[in-house]
């Protein structure tokens, strides 16, 4: 990867569900250490775009590159750099919060120093006391926090977050802002969808507005 290579790039990405065109060709480029906020009304295609970029939903056409790796052709290499936190995280029925984190770390071959990382994250986000609880007993906010931690427990160069503050309390939102700020400074690129003006004003290097599956505007909050 050359210094000019974007951390995340989509070229002509489209998604069609039968006769419904959910995404029109989207060309997007995010530089290393850049945080981009994706905005748009309900049903504008934010979640579909994030699902396609993370390749959970295969795009109808187009290419996606993560740290220069084509996610379709070099999936393993691309996935090593990419983490995605969906808006409604789902969990294994039989695994505790701690075991979920350990499973994700182990599956990503990043068990070195896991205990310290997991302890810090769980304590920071107020889930340490319920680490041995099964997540199906958690409240909506706690589930969302654990979902976030699954994305944060392993190192990633590109982080995708779908409405991460939708069910978080004020303290949780502040912690998330701090964590994202820290990751940004370390060079991680972040693409998140959000309706929160606070999050946008505090963090965004750039905002993208999605309207009916098209990027309607692309602005830089820093420049303004």
């Amino acid at each position, binding site marked *: 990867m050359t210094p000019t290579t974007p951390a995340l790039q989509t070229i002509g990405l489209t998604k069609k569900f039968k006769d419904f065109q959910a995404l029109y060709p989207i060309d997007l480029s995010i530089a290393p250490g850049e945080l981009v906020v994706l905005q748009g009304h309900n049903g504008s295609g934010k979640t579909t775009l994030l*699902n396609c970029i993370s390749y959970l939903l*295969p795009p109808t056409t187009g290419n996606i590159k993560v740290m220069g790796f084509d996610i379709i052709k070099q999936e393993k290499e691309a996935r090593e750099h990419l983490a995605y936190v969906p808006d409604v995280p789902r969990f*294994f029925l039989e695994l505790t919060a701690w075991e979920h984190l350990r499973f994700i770390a182990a599956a990503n071959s990043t068990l070195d120093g896991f205990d310290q990382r997991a302890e810090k994250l769980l304590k920071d986000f107020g889930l340490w006391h319920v680490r041995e609880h099964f997540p199906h007993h958690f409240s909506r906010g706690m589930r969302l926090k654990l979902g976030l931690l699954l994305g944060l427990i392993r190192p990633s160069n590109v982080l995708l977050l779908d409405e991460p503050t939708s069910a978080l309390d004020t303290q949780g939102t502040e912690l998330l802002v701090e964590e994202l700020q820290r990751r940004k400074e370390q060079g991680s690129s972040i693409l998140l969808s959000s309706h929160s003006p606070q999050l946008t004003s505090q963090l965004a290097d750039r905002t993208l507005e999605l309207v009916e599956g098209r990027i309607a505007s692309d602005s830089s909050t820093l420049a303004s």
Partner: protein
Amino acid sequence: MIKDQAKLAIDFLRSRQEYYDLRYWLALVSYDPEERTVSNQFYLLYLIIFFTIWFFMVLIFAAKGVLRFFQLASPMPAITIVSTLLLLSFVIFAVFVFLSSSLRSPLIFTEEHRYLLCQQPVPSRYLVFRWLPAPWLQSLVVLILICLMLGFSLGEITFPADDIASYFLVYVWYGLRVALLAIPYHFALFTSTWAVGLYALRHRGKFKAYLPMLVLVLAVLVLLVIFILFAFFGLNPTISEPVVAVLNNLLLSFFGQGKYSLGFSLMFGVILSAISLLLLWLTAKDFSPAKAAHETQTAALLSSFVKYGQFEAIELVRRKRRMGLTGKSRFLPDWQNSKAFAWKMILQARRTLRFSDFYLLLVTFLLTFGFQLMGNTPAGWLGLASWVWMLSRHLLDYFKQDLSLWPLTRQVPIPTRSWALIDLLLPTIPHLIILMISLCLSFAIFPVRNWVFLLLLPIGLLGAILQLGQDILRKTQIEFLAMGTVQSFGFRGLLMAILCLLTPLLILWFSPGFLGLISSVLSSALLFWISYTGLESQLKRLQLGQESLLF
């Protein structure tokens, strides 16, 4: 005035529910009460006649079965046996209902009731009495069937077998009389269990909450014991004499014998019902619908799953309940990459281990042992086909769960094929081990040794599991997977899985010589390879978001 409006609201809600419940059951026989045509009225008449005759025939058939039981206990008079069986039915019913209604509220409220009804200031007594009829009728049906069968059994003995047609109406009356008399007694018992249940609900958490239940359960059990001692062993201590006399005559009156007439026994049952209703009226005064809803939410959910045949959802609720709130992480090996899936699966298996898992291993042992004993015959194939069907319902659970968590499992930098194979093949290993042990044991015990089974059965089973996995993927669409929805395998998948196991055995059966042996082994390997490549291609199709080309 406000109270009357509340009563009307309860009445409206409950009657709508009862009507829709009834419609659901009638829909199973394709009858729609909303359709007001003449042909539909005739269809209803036809249904009533058909099911009356059908039930009658089934009950007579069952009565003949009970008759055999009488013949086994030939020294005992038939009337003693039917009386005891009737009492036993009542006692089992009473113990079950007393326990269940005391451990949680007898009034079952759904999640919707909890928010829409139970938070309103509704008159509690009216609510209890309006809720009573439907569960009582549902519970009555089973007992009525037992009563009819017992009555017919006695009729079978009383009337000469060749001449029953001449006594047909009297024969029918034998069954109907027992059923008719059972109604008030059942009502009294059912209502008193509700009274006891409401009392327990009010005092939940204290010992006295369960005291009436314990006393009554003990009382009915003592009644059963003293009656059996009297009827079968002739023991009747002075202290229990009056109770036994009443009980015996009451039970005999159900079958037209003893000192009590039908009218007297019926009146006795009505008086008991009135007393039970009074008890319920007293306990219903302080009934808290919100408290009841809190306790019965899961029960309501389970009963709705049962009604609509959602057995996987039932299993999920039960599994959550069994696992409790927390789990200790004791097994933490440094297994990374795709081995993480194996670690996860071991953890999941340990947390959900239950008796049925061992039962399935026993089924594997017995079926493969039996197959070796029976040899490669159609009867043996039937056993193996049912074995695949039984295993398929359990061995694919991990694969389905990992697919349903697609946003989590798809994200890890491990090829989907790797974890799919772990999910499908790892749970099969204990069955393969048991299969080998079973075959080796049968070789050691019996002189007939089909060594080729050691190869054909394990490969066939692995191929079958891969086929079922492939069928799940075939029926799955990526858009639904992203939302966590996974289909189960279909009939085609099950059929292909059974063929994977049976085709080599069929080849061996048609051509038992050396050529057949080689062909069966080769076909087994070929079918395994086809299953594996099929699974792989379905995974690729899924990842690329293409439609399945298979039918």
